[in-house]
């Protein structure tokens, strides 16, 4: 209102009428109206405030976090009122990352903020449950036999009884049980299994220790102490990029999210950062304000695409073709047309490019062979066969530089395992020689694999024709240099010759000019910024059968441009919360390394592939993947045969190991007065003893007891879900494939009748009903993340912080820690009578980061069974170790820190520390055990004790151990390292510290990067700056892999391999084929299962808030084009079918999905809206009902340098991206 200056009209309301009403009002109301009649002032009348004040009042705030395999690892405030969790809010007190950079917070996403819903939700498991059928059978037997173990044996040994309860898995019928009874049944099952079949028939599955270390360790400790096998998960999830061990000799080490901000050029390639890394996506957007260029490569118009400066929509699974063409451009423009000093210097010092490879004659040309070693030069000293050779650029003479594997474990290598080249300037190419040779390279881009013949310059060294890896690489990428023979691309526009930009356009659909320009820009930025070009990658490109090759083609870009080991540069691979920063302390507790070694650690994919009988359904042999230049090693061999070979050569672990109970086997050896190893070797060579994996369907070789906790195996990771249901569990499935036809293995026993229901006991611990608990025999109610003490860390932030209970576990729930200790006590009690102290024969595969990695030099495959070598445990076959198992003492050992900690020391990645002071410290803070077998040892009886122990025993959280570890490493490398941790030598992070706020960790030899001086974490900076070798054959990052099986697949160098052809392999219809199926039009499409915006990592799909925000039930995203072809409208019900199973879901029709591809988001629970199928009349499957496992042979390689086994480090991936499915509209009337 305009003040007119007139006193009369300036006060008051808009009109005289309104004014008069208000004036009248003054006489009717309490209180005093202001002169201008706008406000009324009253006294009192605020009783309604109480309600609102009370609504937002709370009694306490507790700090905790979420253990959901979320890389965010955000810290949260949990509000509690009257003992009820009311809501959660973001914490803001993260450690600062210093000036000039955005801080971690604000962080915490809506998914995390919805977690408290679960506490009181209908999905909550409140009581222990046992399936009624089983419980009745067990109770009846126990009443009769008066002994839990005998009762369990009575039920499972009776074929009819065991069929009955197994067939009812997944059919409901849970009844409430008491804790004592549920754990009694479980303990009895374990005791019986160990007695009858052996401890290696027991397994535990619990992934991602970093997401709640103590909860993981509690169960893994129980399983490990009794001799059961803990199953790997990282490779099983297909989250392990096998290229990482292949190239870096490291499981996975990646930059923290704040380091994205340091990058000048960022390619997001298979990782949808705003969706799957929500709380950290701000770094990506903030970096753009700093001038960072962001490129997205993604088949769909994903959420990250809108943040990008450029979008390269490569077709699904073709990413390697694009990367190869970028590599072509970089090699041509930055190495051949012009020398880039920074790049050349980098690859000479930190990659295998200057190393010599011998060339083998094949027909009228050559193929690349083995790395030239010191042995070839006539050196016969220790480790010579593991020392690689390069040429000195000055003298032209061969040199054996420091740092290769031969220096790592030998006495003479002490002080010489480093990357210091001294005065040697390695020769990158031998082009100055006149000698050339024509090399045959395989190509897989054509319908039938073909051969490319391209020349390289060569030299004769020690009588062998050799060339450098760099020369081979140029030929592989098709970068021509004058004077070299062979067929070469005529230029970037050559569409026929791999690997040009024009060549890739036909494969990926990305314009040649864009591929060329982005490749050039990536390298140009790296040159000008000193290596600050980054590729952010993830499951989108990593879950394919040939993802190791895709990743190698990516890593080639970062290595050629000198970006690895540089802040703001290199690879940034994120799939889950995989980095358990206090790794030494956690692994000590988890695997019971303080009491006995070695633990049984099983490779997950192999385990499931055999246990679920998916091996029976392979209609092809492994040579379908072979290179046209292969020697035929895989001819006639199935994946199961290759697994058998990998087992007996000591490459991969294999539990169950033998067709005998290993306890009985040990007794037998003792009876015969023989050494256990000798006894095993005799048995194997005479045929009296067989590996279990050679006859997976024999009842004595079945896995028997499986415990799943902190995991949703059957709702999330079980590729080939229907095979699990049929063969492992023995219940209904929608599996449609038949094992009647197809190839038969040559070494593995084929039984015409496939077993169903191999597993006797599936037990799960969870706080919510999942697709896994539905199928479990026993479900134990678990505490949530707001009800327990634990620890969390992530790869995306260098800090650790705590879970703390905001409330005590509700109803009858218990922490995993408490549950497993109860189980262990019950087990020990029964073991007094049934087991006692036993000796157990453990077969251990050749381990990475130990001298085992030098066991099979040259990667030459020698099979003792075929008489190609002697069977020598620990050399040509697994090591055979006897472990004493004091079964009645398991409960006591669980609850105390054992003596091997200080007596033997703790070893992580080859670095050993002796935490004697820490044991005294833990004895003081946790208290000592008073009596019994563990008397005098530090207590681990409470979860807080375990938290304290994890922190005290790890270098990342205990400066004294970090420094000690670096000193130990210094003795090996001869370079200066200990100063990296010296600033924190006196710092020890306690559990109370982590409860107060997230605490920055300490630079430690457990990892490859440095946080020293508040620096942002980037992997391999210790390698590049302190000349510490990578854990590989050459000690450098590898472009070239010379194992026999690598050349068999034609994958010695990075190469493009297209997605598997499911039509050729399994007879599925072609992608894009429109046909008729059950009277409806149908279309066959690629079937991808990426991560959704409303679930996975940070919460689950069944969360009511997320269901409300999304479609709220199983859904498949289709392109509008495909939907139109089969007459499907948005939100209509469809059925997706392939040989593996049937899925019913609603269609989400969206133009953001590319034609020919559908998305079914990962881990949609079968507890929410999963109706019956029209096809089978039975309940449809979940996303993994359409997938299955396929084993890539090269992932089985072991016993050779970086290609050696370690749990979650190396092994076949449980990939599933290559799958196709046929989709049709179905009746819109669905029945549940």
């Amino acid at each position, binding site marked *: 209102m305009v003040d007119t200056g007139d006193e009369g009209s300036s006060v008051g309301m808009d009109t005289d009428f309104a004014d008069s*009403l*208000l004036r*009248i*009002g003054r006489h*009717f*109301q309490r*209180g005093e*109206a*202001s002169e201008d*009649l*706008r*406000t*009324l*002032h*009253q*006294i*009192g*009348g*605020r*009783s309604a405030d*109480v*309600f609102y*004040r*009370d609504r937002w009042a709370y009694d306490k705030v507790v700090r905790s976090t979420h253990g959901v395999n979320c890389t965010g690892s955000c810290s949260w405030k949990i509000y509690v009122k009257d003992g009820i969790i009311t809501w959660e809010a973001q914490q803001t007190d993260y450690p600062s990352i210093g000036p000039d950079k955005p801080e971690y917070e604000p962080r915490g996403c809506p998914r995390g903020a919805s977690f408290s819903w679960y506490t009181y939700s209908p999905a909550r498991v409140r009581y222990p449950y046992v399936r009624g059928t089983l419980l009745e059978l067990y109770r009846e037997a126990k009443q009769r036999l008066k002994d839990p173990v005998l009762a369990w044996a009575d039920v499972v040994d009776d074929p009819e009884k065991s069929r009955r309860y197994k067939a009812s898995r997944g059919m409901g019928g849970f009844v409430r049980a008491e804790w004592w009874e549920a754990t009694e049944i479980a303990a009895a099952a374990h005791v019986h299994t160990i007695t009858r079949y052996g401890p290696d028939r027991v397994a535990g599955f619990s992934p991602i220790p970093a997401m709640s270390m103590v909860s993981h360790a509690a169960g893994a400790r129980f399983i490990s102490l009794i001799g059961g096998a803990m199953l790997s998960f990282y490779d099983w999830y297909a989250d392990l990029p096998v290229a990482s061990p292949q190239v870096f000799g490291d499981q996975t080490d990646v930059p923290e999210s704040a380091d994205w901000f340091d990058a000048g050029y960022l390619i997001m390639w298979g990782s949808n950062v705003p969706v799957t890394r929500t709380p950290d996506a701000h770094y990506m957007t903030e970096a753009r304000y700093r001038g960072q260029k962001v490129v997205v490569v993604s088949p769909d118009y994903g959420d990250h695409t809108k943040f990008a400066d450029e979008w390269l929509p490569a077709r699904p699974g073709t990413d390697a073709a694009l990367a190869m063409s970028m590599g072509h451009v970089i090699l041509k423009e930055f190495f051949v047309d012009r020398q880039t000093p920074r790049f050349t210097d980098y690859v000479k010092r930190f990659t295998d490019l200057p190393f010599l490879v011998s060339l083998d004659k094949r027909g009228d040309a050559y193929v690349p062979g083995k790395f030239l070693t010191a042995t070839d030069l006539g050196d016969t000293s220790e480790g010579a066969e593991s020392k690689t050779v390069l040429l000195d650029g000055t003298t032209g003479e061969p040199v054996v530089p420091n740092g290769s594997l031969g220096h790592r474990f030998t006495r003479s290598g002490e002080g010489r395992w480093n990357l210091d080249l001294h005065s040697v300037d390695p020769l990158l190419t031998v082009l100055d020689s006149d000698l050339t040779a024509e090399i045959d390279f395989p190509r897989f881009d054509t319908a039938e694999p073909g051969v490319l013949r391209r020349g390289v310059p060569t030299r004769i060294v020690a009588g062998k024709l050799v060339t450098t890896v760099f020369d081979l690489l140029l030929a592989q990428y098709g970068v021509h240099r004058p004077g070299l023979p062979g067929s070469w691309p005529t230029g970037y526009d050559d569409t026929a010759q791999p690997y040009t930009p024009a060549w890739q356009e036909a494969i990926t659909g990305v314009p040649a000019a864009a591929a060329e320009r982005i490749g050039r820009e990536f390298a140009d930025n790296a040159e000008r910024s000193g290596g600050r070009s980054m590729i952010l990658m993830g499951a989108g490109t990593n879950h394919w059968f040939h993802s190791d090759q895709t990743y190698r083609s990516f890593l080639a870009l970062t290595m050629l441009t000198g970006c690895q080991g540089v802040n703001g540069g290199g690879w940034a691979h994120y799939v889950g919360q995989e980095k358990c920063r206090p790794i030494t302390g956690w692994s000590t507790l988890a695997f019971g390394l303080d009491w006995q070694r070695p633990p049984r650690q099983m490779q997950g994919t192999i385990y499931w592939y055999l246990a679920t009988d998916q091996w029976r359904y392979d209609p092809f042999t492994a040579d379908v993947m072979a290179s046209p230049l292969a020697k035929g090693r895989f001819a006639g061999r199935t994946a199961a045969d290759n697994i058998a070979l990998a087992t007996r050569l000591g490459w991969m672990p294999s539990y169950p190991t033998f067709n005998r109970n290993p306890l009985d086997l040990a007794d037998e050896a003792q009876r015969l007065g023989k050494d256990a190893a000798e006894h095993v070797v005799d048995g194997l060579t005479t045929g009296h003893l067989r590996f279990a994996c050679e006859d997976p369907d024999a009842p004595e070789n079945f896995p028997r007891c499986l415990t799943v906790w902190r995991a949703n195996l059957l709702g999330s990771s079980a590729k080939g879900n229907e095979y699990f249901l049929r063969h492992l569990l023995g219940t209904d499935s929608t599996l449609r494939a038949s094992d009647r036809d197809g190839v038969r293995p040559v070494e593995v026993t084929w039984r015409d009748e496939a077993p169903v229901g191999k597993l006797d006991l599936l037990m799960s611990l969870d706080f919510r009903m999942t697709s896994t608990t539905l199928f479990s025999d026993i479900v134990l109610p678990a505490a949530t993340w707001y009800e327990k003490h634990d620890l969390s860390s992530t790869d995306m932030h260098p800090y650790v912080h705590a879970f703390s209970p905001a409330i005590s576990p509700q109803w009858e729930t218990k922490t995993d820690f408490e549950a497993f200790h109860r189980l262990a006590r019950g087990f020990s009690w029964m073991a007094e009578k049934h087991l006692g102290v036993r000796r157990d024969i453990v077969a251990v595969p050749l381990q990475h980061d130990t001298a085992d990695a030098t066991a099979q030099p040259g990667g030459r495959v020698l099979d003792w069974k075929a008489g190609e070598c002697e069977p020598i445990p620990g050399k040509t076959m697994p090591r055979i170790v006897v472990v004493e198992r004091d079964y009645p003492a398991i409960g006591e050992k669980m609850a105390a820190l054992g003596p091997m900690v200080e007596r033997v020391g703790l070893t992580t990645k080859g670095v050993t520390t002796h935490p004697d002071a820490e044991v005294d410290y833990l004895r003081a803070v946790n208290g000592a055990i008073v009596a019994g077998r563990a008397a005098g040892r530090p207590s681990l009886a409470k979860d807080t004790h375990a938290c304290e122990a994890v922190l005290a025993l790890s270098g990342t959280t205990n400066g004294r151990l970090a420094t000690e570890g670096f000193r130990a490493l210094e003795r090996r490398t001869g370079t200066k390292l200990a100063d990296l941790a010296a600033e924190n030598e006196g710092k020890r992070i306690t559990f109370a510290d982590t409860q107060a706020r997230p605490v920055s960790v300490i630079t430690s030899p457990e990892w490859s990067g440095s946080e020293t001086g508040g620096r942002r974490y980037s992997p391999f900076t210790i390698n590049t700056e302190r000349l510490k070798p990578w854990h590989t054959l050459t000690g450098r990052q590898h472009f070239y892999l010379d194992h026999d099986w690598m050349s068999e697949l034609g994958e010695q160098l990075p190469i493009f391999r297209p997605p598997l052809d499911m039509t050729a392999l399994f007879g599925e219809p072609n992608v894009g084929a429109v046909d008729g199926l059950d009277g409806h039009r149908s279309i066959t499409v690629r079937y991808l299962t990426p991560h959704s915006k409303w679930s996975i990592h940070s919460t689950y799909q069944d969360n009511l808030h997320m269901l409300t925000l999304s479609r709220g039930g199983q859904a498949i995203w289709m392109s509008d084009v495909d939907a139109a072809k089969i007459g499907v409208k948005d939100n209509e019900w469809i059925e997706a079918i392939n040989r593996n199973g049937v899925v019913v879901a609603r269609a989400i029709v969206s133009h953001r999905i590319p034609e020919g591809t559908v998305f079914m988001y990962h881990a949609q629970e079968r507890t929410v809206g999963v109706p019956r199928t029209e096809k089978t009349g039975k309940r449809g499957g979940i996303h993994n009902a359409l997938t299955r496992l396929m084993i890539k042979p090269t992932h089985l390689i072991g016993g050779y340098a970086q290609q050696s086994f370690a749990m979650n480090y190396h092994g076949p991936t449980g990939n599933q991206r290559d799958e196709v499915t046929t989709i049709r509209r179905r009746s819109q009337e669905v029945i549940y």
Partner: protein
Amino acid sequence: MTTLLWLTLPYVAFTSFVVGHIWRYRHDQFGWTTRSSQSHEGRLLRLGSPLFHFGLLAVLGGHVLGIGVPASWTAAVGVSGEAYHLMSVSFGTLSGLATVAGLAILLYRRFTVTAVRKATTTTDKIMYLLLSTAILTGMLNTLGSNLIGGGYDYRATVSPWFRSLFTLSPQPELMVGIPLSFQIHALVVLVLLAGWPYTRLVHVFSAPVGYLVRPYVVYRTRDVAHPGSRRYARAWETAPPRR
């Protein structure tokens, strides 16, 4: 039967009406709402709501006049029976038509607009049934009996009966033999009154009439006279001195 319908039922209905409101006010203040559906639909509401509500206010006024005021009183102030009849029929018809039109629009809207339909509870549906029946029978009485059928003098039967309930000298026999439509109307209204406190109709008592004469902004100072209104005392605070 006469006693049950015209004596017991009215008192039960009134009791339910009064006690129900007190109960609702004490136990469900947050549920004391119209549950407005304006956010779901506005166009039809803008037309239907005023028609209905103002029509209903007029109808209510007519009822006060026709049932609350004895014929003798109106006669005493000089309003003849014919004049009253004319007035009652004309105003009654006019307001009745407005109410019915408004109701029709609102019902059409309630059951055809999806969002509004989904916001409709079972209680609402029962309430609409009763309300519509009451209004339609009332309209029938006004139009049918008075206009077409030549008129019925409810002021001789229904009105005295109704008033007799309040003087605690009930005369249920007055309702015997009156036209069926009047009986039904009265019964439905009684049931409606009985259910009133449990439906959204409670909003009648919280119509924001006061806003017409109240300043827009209200400041409320804490009630100094009652320091104990804080639910919990401040920790360590000494108790207030006793007076």
